[in-house]
């Protein structure tokens, strides 16, 4: 869902959902030999896990631009980083039954709109950044007495890895898929901890977002009567909505695993210019690298970033308390209540719709809705949702409750803002007077690291001016004056502090907390997240939600419609309701419609939802885009190199029939927010029929190789010979003398509960040699491959997934004690009612 600030909010309100991961690390002996982690041993976390799901884009993206070391210099180095990271994650979880690796495939249209907005923004920023970079090098050269350090030159020449290639349809994704297959087969051959593990890889050729392919898998297994209802699931990924998806499975044992967002960063960062530690880019003298030790174990001293568990089971415990409404005229069903809560969370933020103006996660928007829900549940006659479908009459009641509070929320928000601004001013004055710096330049109460020296990041990640349209002066020129200003008072750090955005480290942290979208797989590099805009003139917000007539101004200025056109507002609200229904269905049943999208840049007000109970919502599966169509839909012209050349003119030539989809420049509307990245990129929406018509004309001109990358692929399953019964079953069916059909329904009693069907791979023979697919042969090939690869298909069902516990599900031992429960109840008494009741 990419719920902004969701992790932070959730862990504040429900503290026990988080616990640290206990991790065994490889042991380095005195002679330099490394003893790898032995995952056949019991899990140091005190519990064993069955299935590990990797939302792989959450590994690929961080590996393409690591925070604590230089970016990989080429694809091979990048793959090795990915193997290393994946290995670490697998070693933490030690899945005993299954590893499912899911890479984002083509996305539903609703998601593409968000991807498009991010990529266009990122391209716009990159353009400005490049100019800035050149400027910086000039400064360094000057600093260095007119000589450019050789390693800096090398680094300058190097093209940074373009994260836009992490999209289905690119050659990079092919290499990634091939490399992962090799690596998993290699692990199955060499790591005894993998011997009994089945590995399923759903690469970018299989449509769907990674985490949703994982959810499809979990639902497909739940639909099998052989699924163990007490399966221990772990999903690795960066999105906050994995917690919501975890809840949506109704599996009692579900955890999310991720890096600790709140871990203190910035301690061991490296210079962005020469890649060495110990100094920042501005201090870079380009000196020869000093060896860290005899063998230059460069990462030896580097503490790895710790991981945390997010226990969905504990969140279920909290919600069971929070959502329990006494005296209902119908049976209280905690599973249904949880679904309603997940639905309401999607009002506050998701990847597919702009959030309602009145609902901000940081203003406890979820609590506001939960309170309305609790008040209304007895009269609603039932739950808001049922297995992924919304009861629109009941949804109307919830929205009515919100509408009553809407104005009060806007006014209160304004009052809080004014108070905060006044406070900041006062503190700044105090600080200046006292000549000290308390490091309070943070915004929105996010704790900041102590002030740091100026970094390269600080400069090149400079935010576009708040009013992007007005920023017509050259970015480089703007930067120049900034740098000159800095150089002039190099030693007075306070001055730099107050003039510039927070350090790169703090900035990144803030962005992870404030907007998980920034680190969402499939999004741009985190480097692209600009720091907060400073010196915003509040008078720029001409809608002024806190003043009478705001709705008229909103529709006039944002939608450019006559303020008297009330029917238009209802139309927007109906589209939004459709969106809410789409999102809910997507979470609970899988993508309901691949073509649906919300056709506006802005959300309506709660008060605009009228008579939604009369709506009839129908979704049809729709057409799934092909990889090149998605690329054409989301990439700006500047990133056209990720597409076959044949398509480039469509994005660049003035006579292209779809050139209007690729504006060079576009406005970013801050929409009342403070940060540019929170603003709305005002891009034209893709008209798919036109785009398809244009693309189809080019298809016959594609090379066979390129055309192959535009096709739909299948999941594969890998397993070791040591997984004997299952291996023998498949081998005897596919490869023995009396081989049968090339399809085999898995026997769950032999596959440790896995249901589905496997199919023979064309041109594949077992016991062949396993070739390392990359150039430099950084890893060995295996002569006699003792793993087996087959196609894998999820078991099919025509029935909707039900939000229920399965028979035999054992409730986990409670984590919350009485005082936790009392504390939560205490919070409930004081929350959600602050706007005058529902």
């Amino acid at each position, binding site marked *: 869902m990419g719920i902004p600030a969701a992790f932070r909010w959730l862990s504040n309100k429900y503290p026990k959902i988080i616990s640290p991961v206990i991790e065994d690390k490889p042991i380095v002996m005195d002679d330099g030999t490394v003893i790898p982690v032995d995952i056949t041993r019991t899990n140091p976390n005190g519990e064993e896990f069955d299935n590990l799901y990797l939302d792989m884009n959450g590994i690929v993206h961080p590996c393409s631009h690591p925070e604590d070391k230089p970016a990989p210099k080429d694809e091979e180095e990048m793959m090795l980083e990915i193997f290393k990271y994946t290995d670490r994650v697998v070693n933490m979880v030690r899945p005993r039954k299954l590893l499912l690796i899911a890479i984002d495939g083509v996305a539903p249209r609703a998601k593409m709109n968000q991807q498009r907005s991010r990529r266009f923004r990122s391209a716009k920023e990159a353009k400005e950044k490049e100019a800035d970079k050149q400027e910086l090098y000039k400064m360094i050269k000057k600093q260095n007495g007119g000589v450019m350090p050789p390693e800096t030159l090398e680094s300058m020449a190097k093209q940074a890895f373009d994260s836009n290639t992490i999209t289905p349809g690119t050659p990079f994704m092919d290499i990634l898929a091939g490399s992962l297959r090799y690596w998993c087969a290699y692990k199955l051959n060499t790591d005894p901890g993998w011997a009994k593990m089945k590995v399923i890889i759903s690469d970018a050729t299989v449509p769907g977002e990674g985490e949703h392919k994982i959810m499809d898998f979990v639902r497909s297994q*739940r*639909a*099998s*009567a*052989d699924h163990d209802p007490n399966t221990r699931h772990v999903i690795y990924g960066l999105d906050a909505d994995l917690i919501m998806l975890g809840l949506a499975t109704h599996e009692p044992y579900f955890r999310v695993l991720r890096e600790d967002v709140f871990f203190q960063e910035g301690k061991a960062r490296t210079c962005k210019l020469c890649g060495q530690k110990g100094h920042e880019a501005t201090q870079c003298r380009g000196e020869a690298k000093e060896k860290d030790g005899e063998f230059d174990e460069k990462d030896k001293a580097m503490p790895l970033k710790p991981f945390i568990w997010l226990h969905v089971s504990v969140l279920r415990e909290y919600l069971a308390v929070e959502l329990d409404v006494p005296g209902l005229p119908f*049976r209280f069903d905690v599973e249904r209540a949880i679904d309603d809560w997940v639905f309401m969370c999607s009002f506050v933020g998701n990847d597919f719709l702009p959030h309602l103006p009145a609902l901000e996660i940081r203003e406890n928007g979820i609590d506001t809705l939960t309170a309305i829900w609790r008040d209304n549940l007895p009269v609603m006659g039932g739950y808001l949702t*049922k*297995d992924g479908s919304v009861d629109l009459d009941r949804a109307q009641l919830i929205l009515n409750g919100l509408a009553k509070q809407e104005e009060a929320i806007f006014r209160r928000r304004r009052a809080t803002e004014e108070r905060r601004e006044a406070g900041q001013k006062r503190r700044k004055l105090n600080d200046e007077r006292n000549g000290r710096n308390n490091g309070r330049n943070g915004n929105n109460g996010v704790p900041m690291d102590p002030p740091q020296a100026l970094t390269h990041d600080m400069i090149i990640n400079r935010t576009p001016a708040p009013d992007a349209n007005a920023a017509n002066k050259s970015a480089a020129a703007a930067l120049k004056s900034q740098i000159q200003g800095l150089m002039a008072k190099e030693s007075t750090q306070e001055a730099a502090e107050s003039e510039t955005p927070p350090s790169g480290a703090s900035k990144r942290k803030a962005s992870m907390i404030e907007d998980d979208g920034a680190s969402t797989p499939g999004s741009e590099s985190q480097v692209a997240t600009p720091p907060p805009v400073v010196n915003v003139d509040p008078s720029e917000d001409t809608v002024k939600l806190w003043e009478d007539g705001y709705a008229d101004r909103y529709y006039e200025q944002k939608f450019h419609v006559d303020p008297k056109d009330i029917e238009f507002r209802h139309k927007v609200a109906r589209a939004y309701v459709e969106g809410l229904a789409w999102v809910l269905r997507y979470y609970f049943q899988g993508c309901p419609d691949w073509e649906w999208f919300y056709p506006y840049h802005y959300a309506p007000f709660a008060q605009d939802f009228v008579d939604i109970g009369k709506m009839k919502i129908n979704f049809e599966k729709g057409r799934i885009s092909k990889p090149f169509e998605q690329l054409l839909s989301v990439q700006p012209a500047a990133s056209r190199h990720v597409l076959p050349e044949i398509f480039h003119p469509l994005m660049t030539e003035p006579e292209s029939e779809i050139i209007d989809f690729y504006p060079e420049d576009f406005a970013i509307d801050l929409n009342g927010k403070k940060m540019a990245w929170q603003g709305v990129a005002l891009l034209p929406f893709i008209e798919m029929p036109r785009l398809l018509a244009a693309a189809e004309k080019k298809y016959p001109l594609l090379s066979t190789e390129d055309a192959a990358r535009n096709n739909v692929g299948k999941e594969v399953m890998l397993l070791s010979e040591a997984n004997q019964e299952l291996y023998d079953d498949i081998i005897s069916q596919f490869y023995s003398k009396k081989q049968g059909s090339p399809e085999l*329904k898995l*026997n*769950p*009693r032999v596959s440790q509960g896995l249901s589905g069907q496997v199919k023979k791979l064309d041109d594949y023979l077992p016991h062949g040699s396993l070739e390392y697919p990359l150039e430099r042969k950084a890893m060995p090939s295996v002569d006699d491959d003792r793993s087996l690869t087959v196609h894998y298909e999820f078991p099919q*069902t025509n*029935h909707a997934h*039900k939000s*229920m516990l*399965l*028979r*035999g599900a054992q409730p986990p031992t409670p984590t919350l004690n009485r005082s936790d429960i009392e504390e939560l109840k205490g919070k409930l008494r004081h929350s959600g009612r602050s706007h005058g009741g529902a």
Partner: protein
Amino acid sequence: MSKFNIQPVARFAGDSHPVKRPKEIACFSYDDNHEFHLGYSSMKWYYPPQLGTDLSKGFDKFDKHDDSADEHLDSLLRTIMAHEEEEGKKIDAQIVTWRGMITKIMSSPFEDRDGFEMNATLYQVRDSDADLNNKDCISFIEENHEYKQASMKEQRKQQKKQAKRGGQSQPQFSPDVMSFWGYKFETLSTLPATWAETSRDYIESRDEQVVSNKAQYCSVVRTGFGKTIMCLGGEVDALWDSKPMAHGAPINWVELKTSAEIRDDRGMANFERKLMKFWIQSFLLGVPRIIVGFRSQRGILTKIEEIKTESIPITAAQRGVKTWNANMCINFASGFLEWLKQVINDDGIWRIRRQPKSQTIEVFRVEEA
């Protein structure tokens, strides 16, 4: 008349005789009209019921099977015949009967209040001119229908008397209502298809379903004690997961039972005794899991407990239960059946009888061939 002494039971103590794990070889179903069909059309799946449900609800609409007619072994024999035809060979069992008959025999050492009467017929099944060798013979055993009817009538009378003695403070339920509770519990706890293939509406409205005991799924298994091979037929209530793909692999059946809430030591002792019956019944068909629905005195479902069949003898031993012993049940039945094969050595109809409170089982011929 031949007699088999039950006492002294101590002679059946010690390790259990070898038991052949029950394997389903065939199955049949009675539909909603109690009509016979080969196959598993009436098989059901277990999904837990809603606690707090009133087990008496719908008693007035109970669609009860009329059990006054003697159904003999007909359905079992039809199923075996079809199975033999499919396999192209005869089954190798020496005893063919309903599971209930062997249950009565197995529980004999620890149950002396009730008696039983069964009829047995010997058939020579294999073409052999040699002497009657009991390896080539099958004894078909069924309950003596008249005796069963009579004893059930008697039992009802006793229950009614007991209910009256219970006094005014106790809620009054007729024996018919109380036996309805068991069927109601089955209706509340089962689905006609897997959970995934059943609609939420059905699952949540099981309390509204008309309760019927006409439909049944019956499993026909091959099992054995010691040297005796048996083919048993019996109803199984529900499936836990799915029927295994491999023939003869253990099936995760579920046996559904109701019992009064345990409120004191006497209740506990009663439940212990019931557990022996639960164990024997499930053990004989290879049912690994028993779900017990505990009900209040007013017939409200208050608790569900899942019991592993194999754990019943173990936990009974751990609790120091002296009233029964699983190995002795097996060894007694094994010894008795071995003896029975010697006694029933000729055509005709034989009677196997235990009179209430008697310490012997008598076998005698009632009809010449």
